[in-house]
């Protein structure tokens, strides 16, 4: 399992460059600092890393969770962790992690990935729209447990920066959501990220 971030992963950058078809992407592995995509993703990495540092201190206070027969123990621990995160990030607002620069880049990646999909995939996705949760996601709140977690488009994930295993991306309506899995807390939201 992955526990650390590697935002200079060649596959990722290569994929992003291919999708963006932007000039200046050819030598980004050798000179990542000169690549605008790499710089935006590196900034995102720093923001995620800052959250993970905060999270670690909170996890230390509630304890790590090991497999248990007791669902009550899992629920109690998740609730405690969520409360700690929400309290510690009381001032959190949209864009803290998904910065405008990051959002613009990712929205373009997603849009271009969607436009390249064959008709059969488009039709399938349309058929599956009814599975998408229809609530409005808000930063620093719990993901409502009454909604399913929509399947994340498998062909899209390789284009996005990897996350620590404690976090994940999700799609809610046309929002891209960053979610703390164990705590079930929405960390940031990106409106209009996913084509309707």
């Amino acid at each position, binding site marked *: 399992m992955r526990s650390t971030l590697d935002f200079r992963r060649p596959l990722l950058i290569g994929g992003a460059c291919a999708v963006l078809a932007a000039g200046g992407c050819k030598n980004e592995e050798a000179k990542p600092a000169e690549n605008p995509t790499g710089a935006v993703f590196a900034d995102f990495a720093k923001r995620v890393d800052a959250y993970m540092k905060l999270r670690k201190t909170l996890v230390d206070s509630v304890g790590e969770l090991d497999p*248990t027969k007791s669902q009550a123990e899992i629920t109690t621990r998740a609730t405690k962790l969520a409360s700690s995160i929400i309290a510690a990030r009381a001032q959190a607002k949209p864009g803290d992690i998904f910065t405008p620069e990051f959002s613009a880049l990712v929205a373009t990646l997603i849009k271009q990935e969607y436009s390249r999909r064959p008709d059969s995939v488009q039709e399938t996705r349309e058929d599956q729209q009814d599975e998408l949760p229809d609530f409005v996601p808000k930063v620093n709140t719990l993901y409502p447990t009454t909604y399913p977690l929509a399947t994340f488009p498998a062909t899209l994930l390789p284009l996005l920066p990897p996350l620590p295993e404690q976090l994940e991306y999700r799609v809610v309506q046309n929002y891209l959501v960053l979610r703390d899995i164990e705590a*079930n807390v929405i960390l940031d939201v990106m409106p209009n990220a996913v084509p309707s």
Partner: protein
Amino acid sequence: MRSRFGAAIIAVALAAAPLGAQVYLPMKSGSVRFLVLGDAGTGGREQYEVANQMVRYGKTFPFTFAIMLGDNIYGSERPQDFDRKFTRPYKTLLDKGIEFDAALGNHDDPNQRFYKPFNLGGNRYRTFKKGNVRFFVIDSNYLDPEQLKWLDKELAASGSDWKIAYFHHPLYTTARRGPEVEVRAVLEPLFVKYGVDVVFSGHEHIYERYKPQKGIYYFTVGGAAKLRRGDTHPSPLLSARFDRDRSFLLAEIAGDSLYFQTVSRIGAVVDKGVLARRGVRP
């Protein structure tokens, strides 16, 4: 009116249900025997009725473990929900020591990986071995590059064992929502490359068995509690389909053969057969 008519049909069918479990599996010495169920965790009456048939068949066909194809717990996941939607309906099986090996569905909180009775060991995906069979439990909700890398490595290392993959979303189905073609795009090449023999999925609340697609047998077994009546459609790719009631599947692997039978909520056998593994098929 419709519900009364439906109830009448169920009543007639129950009256006509066989008294003894009709097991068509060979029960060979040393074979690997297991149960397959999908989309089970409603806590509703139908889940309990299907569970009763599992117990009934288990008396004649003693299986040792059950693979769950996701949507293990629908709706809220409070401790009392795990009781009503899992431990109570399957109490008899759990008391007998039947091991439940769950995959995660789109209705499942990923924290289910910490719930010991689901045997995920804190992970979203894993592999385990029973006899000469290697199972790959995949999280099809979130196929990140890390998981695909893991799968590639584990499939490569699985050698000559039977290879069975299971996860929530079907790569092939005739159901209304259609196959998960994006999931198929990333998983199927690996399955073909490493010779996966059989794939089990749920998600669609029906039963379907496909003719081999690129050499792989695909089953959808998503009706252990919910039902989308009339949601399978004729297709030349299908070997069997059933969408008139809930169902689960019993399987036995002995040597190079996988024997199976699919059982409905009233205990009727709705499909059965034997599959040969890759390399020994005619």
